[in-house]
């Protein structure tokens, strides 16, 4: 009861945010937070719930982004119309990568995903039809409203919010379904889960494919908003790392963890870029490195988990006190 009231209150704040803070900078910042929250929430399904830390999710992000831009460039589709194409391609690629790599445990899986992502970047850099090293652009002027090319960030904000709610809804459903039950067991102890007859390989692959499909949607939305994609922005390792860190900082394996992480990291990055200008480009890596160390050392299960644990402790302390007062 109390929890749903809180959730509604937060949702109302999120909906009202771009109207309350109606400057272009803050609206754009809000839209970016939601965009990265979509990507990080999608990552969370395989990285958080299934415990398979993919560091190559940019492949799926890039797949969605490139599908949008390529189908616009070659066939004149509105960028957003190619979302199903990007999703199908991502799910297919996930199946291809996942079958051999998900057998690997721990760090080996992470390393394999990095290798695949770097390989994809090199391949795309050499394909003319995908713009090679230069990249692909979207419509310069909106032809119709379906091109989703707006000067204001406001429409993007609400579009991203709607997509994020769908992704979180799916995650919530999964969390409470049979697949979520098995994924938690696999994350906890894969050998034991297998010994009881849980088909670990199959469920990890499902999670990877769902996660890949949703990540590609984030990529398509990114390309639609920026109207441009190149190998660095669409397939660079930094995007993979960003997605992963947001989820880990907020709380991997928690429904709202990635959103919390995005709400902290995106403003941090935007502000540091604004303050430092071009000089700050390399500093982003330093900041991410520092955050990785801090999370690993102090909050391995994320900030949201920390807050929830504190709240739970405070609640039980206050109920203990009530019991004592009553006695």
């Amino acid at each position: 009861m109390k929890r749903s009231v809180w959730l509604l209150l937060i949702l109302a704040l999120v909906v009202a945010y771009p109207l309350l803070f109606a400057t272009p900078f803050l609206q754009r910042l809000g839209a970016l937070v939601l965009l990265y929250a979509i990507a990080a929430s999608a990552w969370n399904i395989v990285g958080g719930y299934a415990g398979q830390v993919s560091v190559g999710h940019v492949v799926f992000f890039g797949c969605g982004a490139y599908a949008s831009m390529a189908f616009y460039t070659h066939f004149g589709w509105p960028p957003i119309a190619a979302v199903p194409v990007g999703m199908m391609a991502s799910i297919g690629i996930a199946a291809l990568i996942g079958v051999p790599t998900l057998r690997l445990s721990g760090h080996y899986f992470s390393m394999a995903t990095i290798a695949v992502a770097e390989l994809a970047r090199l391949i795309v850099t050499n394909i003319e039809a995908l713009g090679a090293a230069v990249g692909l652009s979207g419509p310069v002027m909106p032809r119709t409203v379906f091109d989703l090319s707006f000067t204001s960030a406001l429409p993007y904000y609400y579009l991203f919010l709607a997509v994020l709610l769908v992704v979180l809804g799916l995650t919530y459903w999964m969390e409470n379904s049979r697949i979520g039950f098995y994924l938690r067991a696999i994350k906890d102890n894969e050998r034991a889960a297998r010994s009881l007859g849980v088909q670990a390989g199959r469920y990890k692959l499902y999670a990877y494919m769902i996660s890949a499909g949703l990540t590609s949607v984030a990529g398509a939305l990114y390309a639609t908003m920026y109207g441009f994609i190149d190998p660095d922005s669409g397939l660079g390792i930094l995007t993979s790392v960003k997605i992963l860190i947001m989820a880990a900082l907020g709380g991997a394996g928690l429904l709202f963890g990635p959103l919390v992480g995005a709400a902290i990291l995106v403003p941090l990055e935007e502000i540091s870029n604004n303050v430092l200008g071009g000089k700050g480009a390399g500093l982003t890596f330093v900041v991410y490195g520092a955050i990785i160390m801090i999370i690993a050392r102090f909050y391995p299960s994320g900030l949201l988990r920390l807050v929830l644990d504190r709240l739970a402790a405070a609640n039980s302390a206050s109920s203990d006190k009530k019991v004592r007062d009553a006695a």
Partner: protein
Amino acid sequence: MSNLETSQPLLSISHLEVKYGDLIGVADVSLEVGRGQIIALLGSNGAGKTTTLNAIAGLIPASSGQVEFAGHDITHQPAYAIVSQGLALSPEGWRLFVQQSVENNLMLGATTVADAAKKSDLLDKVYGIFPKLAERRTQQAGTMSGGERQMLAVGRALMSDPQLLLLDEPSLGLAPAIVESMYDTLIGLNKAGLTILLAEQSVELALEISNYAYVLQVGRNAMSGPSAALAKDPNVQKVYLGH
């Protein structure tokens, strides 16, 4: 004809070999487990007991040899297919889902049971065997004592309604009184029809409750015989019982 079938062992392993890359985990192990028996698998640390059990359960692949269960060749079948045929493993060191509740751990044991009514019957049965687990059904598995964890590991394995239970070191790290009550429970389960293959380092206890025993040494069969006879064997007494 039916006489012949019943005389067939429930589990039979011939010349099992398991390799970890170039390392040999089990070189050549053969054994038979008859229906309704308790068979002990003995040997020191590193003799290949755990590897043998894991290979039977389909958790690691056998590089050669054959495993037959209830008349079917299960050598190259995946774990989930083996569990659903009625073979359950309670692994060494319990390997519980420590973050989850007792009841969730048990329900995961019934993964291969499709029928919801049967699942809840099995749950009642396991709570009947281990009333302590019923008291603690909502407790996180990681916060329980060693004895309770061992109960949960065995209870979880029973949730798949097995004909054959493989038990890996059930006495490891437990106080003697707790081990004794666990063994009493095992004897009870066996009397009710469960066949048990028990890997143990506590040779004395294992020989006490088993019908027949196999001793492994560096991944090979070293000795075997009726448990009562092995317990009197001067070699076994010297090496394993410290007499």
